[in-house]
């Protein structure tokens, strides 16, 4: 009777030591730590390609845009992060304003056109995503579709569209609206949105709801559709994408950024990683992989399945101008947050 438990304890202790050893081994590995708000599969593909080429290990911590940005600000100089990657630019601006980014070397910045990076050179765009209106083809014909994002404030759209207002993605779109049309129009539009739209948690969930016939359409980013089509197609079989074009706020192209933390103890490797992502092989991951985000480096090609970036007629918005604080104030006032 007394033998069984002690051998049980011994086995437990052994298991602990074994897995503890693998733990310690990982911690001891020199390499870089990436705070990643991008889709994990994309960053993992980047990190794996980079590690394979350079031998530098990459450890990824995942989280949301503003979650990780605020976390970095809290951690300050003690942050374990070397590199920060986001889905949208407002979170990059937040860390930049806190003075926590290192200025990137010229050769890193030179790879990407000026409209995908801030004038300060503190971070650089590595990918982009386009705003779209995903709609149920069984319910809406092309002639029913909104001409502009602003049309969705119209009473006839009441109860017919959805979005994910709590996500950083949608907040970046509102940021673009604010930058392009000003505070008054944005505030009114948000008020109408509160009355007209259904809130979902996450763009993919919103698309899934459109596909299931719960709601007619949703404002999301383009790649959720292509990603699902490439997998089972189960959540996108009944939907199509509508591009707003004409420089409309709804045609906003959001920049995903990457930057090196000033507190990093591995700056050289960290800069090498950012350079790699914005470089030829990093951009090729966007073309060949299943992320379906746009490649943006000079001369880089995107996935041929996508609507060409030149046809999107996106509005001109400087990525570092997006004011995340004002956006969250306006959205809270409208009762969306």
């Amino acid at each position, binding site marked *: 009777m*007394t033998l*069984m*438990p*002690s051998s*049980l*304890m011994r086995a*437990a*202790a052994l*298991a*602990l030591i074994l*897995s*503890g050893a*693998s*733990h310690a081994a*990982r*911690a001891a590995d020199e390499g870089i*730590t990436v705070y990643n708000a991008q*889709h*994990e*599969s994309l960053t993992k593909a980047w990190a794996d390609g980079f590690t394979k080429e350079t031998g530098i290990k990459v*450890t*990824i*911590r*995942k*989280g*949301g845009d*503003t*979650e990780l940005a*605020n*976390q970095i*600000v*809290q*951690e300050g100089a*003690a942050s*374990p992060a070397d590199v920060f990657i986001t889905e949208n630019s407002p979170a990059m601006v937040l860390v930049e304003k806190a003075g926590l980014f290192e200025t990137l070397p010229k050769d890193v910045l030179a790879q990407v056109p000026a409209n995908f990076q801030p004038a300060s050179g503190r971070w650089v765009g590595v990918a982009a995503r386009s705003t779209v209106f995903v709609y149920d083809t069984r319910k809406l014909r092309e002639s029913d579709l909104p001409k502009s994002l602003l049309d969705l404030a119209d009473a006839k759209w009441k109860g017919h569209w959805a979005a994910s207002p*709590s996500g*950083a993605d949608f907040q970046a779109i509102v940021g673009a609206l604010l930058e392009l049309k000003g505070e008054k129009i944005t505030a009114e539009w948000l008020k109408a949105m509160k009355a007209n739209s259904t809130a*979902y*948690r*996450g763009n*993919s*969930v919103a698309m*899934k*709801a459109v596909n*299931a*016939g*719960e709601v007619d359409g949703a404002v999301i980013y383009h790649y959720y559709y292509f*990603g*699902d089509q490439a*997998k*089972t197609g189960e*959540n996108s079989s009944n939907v199509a994408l509508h591009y707003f074009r004409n420089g409309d706020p709804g045609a906003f192209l959001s920049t995903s950024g990457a930057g090196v933390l000033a507190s990093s103890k591995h700056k050289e490797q960290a800069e090498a990683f950012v350079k790699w992502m914005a470089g030829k092989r990093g951009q090729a991951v966007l073309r060949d992989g299943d992320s379906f985000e746009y490649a943006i480096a000079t001369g880089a090609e995107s996935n041929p399945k996508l609507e060409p970036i030149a046809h999107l007629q996106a509005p001109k918005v400087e990525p570092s101008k997006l004011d995340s604080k004002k956006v*969250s104030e306006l959205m809270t006032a409208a*009762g969306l*947050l």
Partner: protein
Amino acid sequence: MSVQAQPLRAYAVIATQPLRLRRVRQLAAKSLFGLAALVSLVTLLPLGFILWITLQTGWETASALIFRPRVGELLVNTALLEVLTLPPCIVLAVALAWLTERSDVPGARLWSWLAVAPLAIPAFVQSYAWVGVAPGMHGLFAAVFVSVLAYLPFLYLPVAAQLRHLDPAMEDAAASLGLAPWRVFLRVVLPQLRIALCGGSLLIGLHLLAEYGLYAMIRFDTFTTAIVDQFQSSYNGPAANMLAGVLVLSCLGLLGLELLIRGDARYARVGSGAPRPASRRSLGRARGIAVLLPLTLSGLALGVPAYALGRWLIAGGSEIWQARELAAAFGETLFYAVGGALATTLAAIPMAWLSVRAPGRLQRVLEGCHYYVGALPGVVVALALVTITVRVALPLYQTVATVLLAYGLMFLPRALVGLRAGIAQVPVELERAAIALGRRPVGAILSVTMRLAAPGVAACMALVAMGVTTELTATLMLAPNGTRTLATEFWALTNELDYAAAAPYAALMIALSLPLTALLHAQSRRVAGQ
């Protein structure tokens, strides 16, 4: 066994050196008391944090963040969830327990296993299955429905154990005094189930408050989902902390309510001899209909998840079995489960020993600390530890130690309950004899008492390990960089709507929990003397 001879020799020694031994024993009690007090102090961290952060935020900001329409909305949502979920759980648990324990329903033993089995399915996997089968499911009633399926075993287990326990003599007396069978049930049996019903309901009520994954997946906003939302947009901002404060108050409110309803009536049986086992009531022609209840419940709580998982596993094919990633997540989960179980059990030993060997007023206060902290949702514990480590204990920030500390706090009551029962069954004389023979007091407790209490220790470690295996929020918020457990990976994949790729992680979590669930079921039967 050789141990039997030892007490005699030991008593001879005690007779010659009574004073020294008493002092040694007092020393043991004192040092354990110190340790238990230390653990209690740590359990006060989350509560202290909430108070500290409220003071720091200042009343004006705090009240602006607490008294706003959104919080009212969440309060209504959470209250409705509690009020609508608990009654059906109670009715179903009592009906199910009566059928499996007291009737001749066909396959009673099988149903009693199947009634406990949903415990092996993490709540967020249960809702993942339902969302997969019925994509449109969302909102309050969907939340209530899935909650009932996921948490029913928490009530079924204690109620069934209690029903097995009851002395049928009381029911016989009531019947012989002329009460109809169903009146006997209402007036004699049901009141005796009160403690089991209160305890089980409290457990479910606390889970409803703390659960994140289930409700996020089914799109129903509660305090916990709102806190995580806030955390994901502003890290540990004041809005998240204030919501956590309201959530803590709700939990403490539930604890108080249970204490009030439970009362302090006496339920122990008086008289000599042992109760005979209760006879099973014949259902007659209703047998066929009665079997529909356990059949339907098992079909919904086990069949649907099995179907959904099976469908995704087949749809995903061999591609989703990424052996390296799966093995890594499995190993990491095992590490945290074993580490968490060891740490939690070690932390609970001093209090468990004191509550059996040296109960007292102060001891009861400290024991209360051990219990209250288990009622706190993972998100609150994690929020407290994130802020404390990042601001004042940076070397502990994002370390395994902090994660284990969080698990320890959350699962302390689970460990304490099992340990206490185990220690109570070890004769104190053996421990004294070991001390008399020269063992150090703490050494005697560890090598004699704890060794004999081992079956109880193993059961409570299994319970803690099961909790850790399916823990999501605290792990997400506190884990070191690069940590991937089965639960966090499953969650990340479902967030990308990659339900097929998430299926193997869900299957592994269930595979890990299943033996632990079986152990739990066996344990509950043994306690009832069967």
